[in-house]
């Protein structure tokens, strides 16, 4: 049939059951994205004869002889459409994976539809921005242009902005580059599909793969008999010993529904799926434990009873105990017994899926030198490289991992979830192999946020001064321990350390269950524990008759106070983990939110069933993870007088690329057009721990700043010599080195340096994050609650952050808005439910509801005025933290409105309604 895309016709032969999206991507229109493949997210929206359609739902055959327009047909990076320009100027994206569909949909709206945007964008999901900037891009009267270049502290667009809004910025499986550049496979890849466990707990007793292997077009079938007998963890950390070694690439024991059983590699995804259907697998079902409390009971079915505790670093595999933490100061029991006021309660949080719009995906191949190359959607290319080498028995130098722009991460890509399979398949077949997980796999088989049960007890005097704080925490690790020790430690650390209390107690355990594994997710456990503590504090304020802001002011730590109780997690005792008050703006944040919450906002809906209330909560976070987060950076002056900056950290919508470019622009006195940033490639620099723990801007940023400053010195020195001046007499500028009226172009400085030393000027920088600071967030809400339906309507949302020097106000605002939106999702809607047999009920984004534009109010974002002594240029990290205080602030507002305390997330309308019943 004839397919006409963006005005160009070609002959194609679609398969009968093919959808338009895959046909477009197969014909190199990779600007069309796959976010859900079920018509729910809108990332694949294209115009057919001018009408927007979800191309994943549109039979390819129906596009015959019709005009199809993709986002790349609306404008080009060099010549943006006015709407694309508005998305650039409004910073209407973060990771950018939803943007193609967002722009195409918005391009088709008329004035009436734009005026009713909540309805007309409900079929377009964005997981990063919180939608405010998208709304501005689509509906604002005028959008102020966002400069393409600027120094630190200025409003600057993301360097990739023009490519993102035209769909031309490549993601992991957008294999459009020139293979000669080494970033895409030399030939079209084979496709890998995974057979997943139908049982919560079972042993594979037999696998017959002969029919699958005999199917023409099938190149490889992997079962548990075909993989290295090397235990590892999918969770990745700087120190690989942080996570228990409890996972095999393919394991004969299945410990949760959805666990990998086998993999097939074939010419097409359909053939790979057919091969899986031909596998004859016999299972011996085993008793399963699906609940963390039950898992710790004597006699519970064991999840990893076969493991050696010391070798796998599992606290007690014979009790399903992944890790535990106990610590305290003073005597909590006595303090509680003596306290004039006590409150307590047990709080529960849900299993929450990241829903990064780009699902986990990777493609691998062998380069000319026979080296294994893996191109992956990962936050941690270096850590994946190291672990791949270990599992596959390769020298580290024999493996390269690179990450193009990542379509959302939120911690979910601080894991090795697809790379091991494609790498093994490439090694076995010698061929490029790709694996793209489905949304159903991501929702029901891949790691989620850890569900927590937190029992909290507080004691205080009549003056509101806390005398006791105790938490008892149970963490559901799921079937594998990836990130569970870290999430447990971190969740109990800054949350408990936020308050100055003489008697504190922390008891925490993480338990294996036969459920979907839990993993890293924005906030890394803090949000769960903060939900409990901040809710209890709200109850305490009510008991005391004290303003909740005032109660916090009386009890929060201030510079000079130690961080108690679990500052050195290894042994639960105190010690120096490098945490310092590099700056302190919590007091300002409290004042800012209290003032702003009193004004503005939407009116409550009319009717006698609506109740109005306000609530607030705060949280503290360390600016980087403990025990070392490393970044190397290199800066070079190129022969043409432009700059090349190399870092290891990945861009997944967190905006580090923007900030790092700003740092380079400032330190090298240049403009963004003259800077090229190489990033997230194990070939780019020696090492980078990765883009997690909010480290992207502050750790890699500090390393890059050092490299750029050293390079600037070197260039000035050579330039001064060329000018016959002293280094202190010359200044670096965009064009060259200048001394008074005389100047020498940068290209000449480069040439001179080559002449003298044999190479152009370059300098390295590094940072180890040995010292860490603390950042603060305060969230306030005013809500209306309909006691008849249980619906919660947010009337006013205010969030103040203490992020030190603001490196880019547009971007920081976006990070905060996005964190608040994710917090609202966790607080009101999101939950992956495991049924009685361990099966997940939510396999599409219809069933797993993430906030739409209508669900996210505009949040007023306020910045404390501080300057950090530890972070680069006075800045502190701020990308995961805004999530943490959102749920308790909402719960406190709901409590204020309806007089009932909700202790379980999400506070869905049915739960709120039930709580309001007499």
């Amino acid at each position, binding site marked *: 049939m004839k397919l006409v895309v963006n005005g160009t016709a070609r002959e194609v032969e679609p*398969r*009968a*059951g*093919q*959808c338009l999206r*895959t046909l477009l991507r197969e014909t190199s229109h990779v600007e069309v994205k796959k976010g859900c*493949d*079920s*018509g*729910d997210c*809108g990332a694949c*929206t294209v115009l057919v004869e001018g*009408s*927007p*359609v*979800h191309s*994943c*739902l*549109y*039979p390819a*055959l*129906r596009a015959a002889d019709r005009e199809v327009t993709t986002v790349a047909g609306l404008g080009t990076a060099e010549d943006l459409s006015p709407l694309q320009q508005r998305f650039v100027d409004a910073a209407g994206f973060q990771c950018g994976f939803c943007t193609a569909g967002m722009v195409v*949909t918005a391009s088709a709206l008329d004035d009436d*539809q734009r005026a009713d945007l*909540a*309805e*007309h*964008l*409900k*079929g*377009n999901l964005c997981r990063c921005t919180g939608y405010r900037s998208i709304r501005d891009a689509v509906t604002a009267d005028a959008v102020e242009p966002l400069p393409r270049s600027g120094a630190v502290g200025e409003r600057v667009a993301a360097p990739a902005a023009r490519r993102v809004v035209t769909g031309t910025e490549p993601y992991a499986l957008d294999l459009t580059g020139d293979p000669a550049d080494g970033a895409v496979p030399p030939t079209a890849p084979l496709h890998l599909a995974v057979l997943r466990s139908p049982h919560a707990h079972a042993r594979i007793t037999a696998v017959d793969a002969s029919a699958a292997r005999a199917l023409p077009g099938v190149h490889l079938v992997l079962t548990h008999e075909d993989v290295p007998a090397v235990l590892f963890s999918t969770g990745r950390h700087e120190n690989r010993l942080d996570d228990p070694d409890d996972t095999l690439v393919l394991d004969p024991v299945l410990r949760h529904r959805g666990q990998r059983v086998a993999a097939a590699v074939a010419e097409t*995804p*359909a053939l790979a*799926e*057919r091969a899986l*259907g031909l596998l004859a697998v016999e299972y011996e079902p085993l008793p399963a434990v699906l609940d963390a409390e039950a898992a710790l009971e004597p006699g519970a079915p064991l999840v990893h009873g076969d493991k050696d505790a010391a070798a796998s670093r599992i606290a007690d595999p014979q009790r399903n105990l992944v890790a535990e933490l106990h610590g305290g100061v003073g005597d909590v029991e006595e303090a509680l017994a003596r306290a004039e006021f006590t409150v307590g309660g047990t709080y529960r949080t849900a299993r929450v899926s990241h829903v990064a719009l780009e699902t986990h995906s990777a493609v691998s191949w062998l380069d000319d030198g026979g080296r294994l190359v893996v191109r992956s959607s990962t936050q941690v290319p270096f850590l994946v490289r190291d672990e791949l080498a270990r599992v596959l028995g390769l020298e580290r130098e024999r493996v390269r991992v690179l990450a193009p722009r990542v379509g959302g991460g939120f911690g979910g890509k601080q894991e090795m979830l697809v790379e091991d399979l494609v790498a093994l398949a490439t090694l076995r077949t010698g061929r490029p192999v790709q694996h793209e997980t489905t949304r159903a796999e991501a929702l029901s088989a891949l790691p989620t946020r850890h569900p927590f049960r937190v029992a909290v007890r507080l004691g205080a005097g009549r003056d509101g001064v806390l005398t006791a704080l105790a938490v008892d925490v149970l963490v559901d690790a799921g079937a594998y321990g990836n990130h569970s020790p870290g999430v447990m430690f971190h969740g109990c650390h800054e949350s408990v350390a936020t308050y100055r209390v003489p008697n504190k107690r922390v008891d925490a355990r993480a338990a294996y269950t036969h459920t979907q594994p839990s993993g890293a997710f924005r906030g890394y456990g803090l949000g769960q524990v903060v939900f409990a503590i901040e809710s209890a504090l709200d109850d305490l304020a009510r008991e005391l008759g004290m303003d909740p802001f005032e109660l916090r002011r009386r009890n929060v730590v201030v510079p000079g106070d130690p961080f108690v109780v679990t500052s050195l997690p290894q042994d639960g005792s105190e010690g120096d983990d490098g945490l310092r008050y590099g700056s302190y703006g919590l007091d300002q944040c409290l004042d800012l939110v209290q003032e702003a919450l009193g004004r503005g906002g939407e009116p409550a809906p009319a009717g006698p069933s609506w109740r109005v209330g306000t609530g607030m909560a705060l949280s503290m976070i360390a600016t980087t993870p403990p025990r070392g987060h490393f970044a190397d950076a290199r800066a070079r002056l190129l022969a043409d007088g432009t700059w090349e900056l190399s870092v290891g950290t990945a861009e997944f919508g967190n905006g580090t690329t923007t900030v790092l470019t700003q740092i380079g622009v400032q330190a090298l006195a240049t403009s963004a057009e003259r800077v090229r940033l190489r990033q997230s490639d194990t070939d780019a620099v020696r090492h980078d721990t990765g883009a997690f723990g909010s480290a992207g801007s502050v750790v890699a940023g500090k390393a890059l700043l050092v490299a750029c400053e050293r390079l600037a010195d070197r260039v000035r020195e050579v330039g001064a010599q060329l000018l016959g001046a002293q280094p202190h007499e010359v200044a670096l500028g965009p064009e060259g080195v200048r001394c008074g009226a005389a100047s020498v172009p940068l290209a000449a400085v480069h040439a001179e340096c080559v002449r003298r030393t044999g190479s152009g000027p370059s300098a390295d920088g590094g940072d180890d994050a040995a010292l860490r600071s603390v950042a603060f967030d305060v969230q306030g809400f005013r809500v209306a609650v309909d006691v*008849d*339906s*249980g*619906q919660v*309507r947010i009337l006013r949302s205010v969030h103040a952050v203490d992020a030190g020097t603001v490196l880019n106000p547009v971007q920081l605002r976006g990070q905060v808005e996005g964190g608040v939106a994710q917090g609202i999702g966790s607080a*009101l*809607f999101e939950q992956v*439910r495991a049924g009685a047999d361990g099966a997940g*009920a*939510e396999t*599409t984004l*219809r*069933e797993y*509801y993430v*906030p*739409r534009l*209508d*669900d996210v109010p505009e949040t007023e974002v306020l910045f404390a005025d501080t300057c950090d002594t530890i972070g680069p240029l006075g800045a502190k990290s701020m990308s995961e933290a805004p999530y943490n205080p959102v749920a308790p602030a909402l719960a406190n507002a709901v409590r204020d409105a309806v007089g009932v305390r909700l202790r379980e997330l999400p506070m*869905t*309308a*049915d*739960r709120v*309604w*039930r709580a309001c019943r007499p």
Partner: protein
Amino acid sequence: MDLTTVEAILPVRDRAALAGAHRGAADTALLAGGTWLFSVPQPHLRALVDLTALGWEPFEVDEQGLRIAATCPIGALADVPFAPDWAARPLFRQCTRALLASFKVRAVATVGGNVCTALPAGAMTSLTSALDGVAELWPREGGVRRLPVAELVTGDGRTALAPGEVLRAVRLPARALRARTAFRRLSRARLGRSAALVVGRREQGGAFALTVTASTPRPVVLRHAAVPAARELVAQVEAAVEDGPGWFEDVHGDLDWRRASTLRFAAEVVEELS
């Protein structure tokens, strides 16, 4: 998503071809908009019979009322030339927007597809059953069978369609279209999937009907010669559901909440139409 096991899409241009292609085999499905079919894996399917080539007029208005073709896109209902006295007009927009699916999906998804998918939250089932819609069915052996939509949908994902039988159209009587309607909907998020959807209808002659969908696995319709007392109707709804299909619960909301809201809505509908 790609339906990887489908080997053929068979366009049919007349009823004979349709009967020949659609014999009720488990591996064959009817394709109209395709928005549900392509949204979930269909590993059992080998062939899709494409109804769109039949060229059915999306809607026809006559003195008897409105006839909506099964292949009428949901979004096209906005273009129906409503008679000035068709007071039920707002219900079309309310039910269209009750769908979780975006306007882009609704422009392609069809009224018949929504009804025959038979999801409890299927808003076209709500609309057509609330307006006394009668399905025109094409049995495979020929002729026409008529069945109220409220009886066509028999449960969550289940219909009264015989193997090989095709929904041709839904006819809405002018009597119902001239009625005043009251609409209530419950969902966790304001624009989320319906958890309860209640429509009241008061005809010019006084007759009253209440239709419950989304909180029950199939439509539950209660009729009265005049608007009943709220208390009486609520008790009747409760009995009709609990003696009948029971309340429905899924990931979009718990049963007790849906039940209580449905009963509250019934009372509110009475109040609005009294």
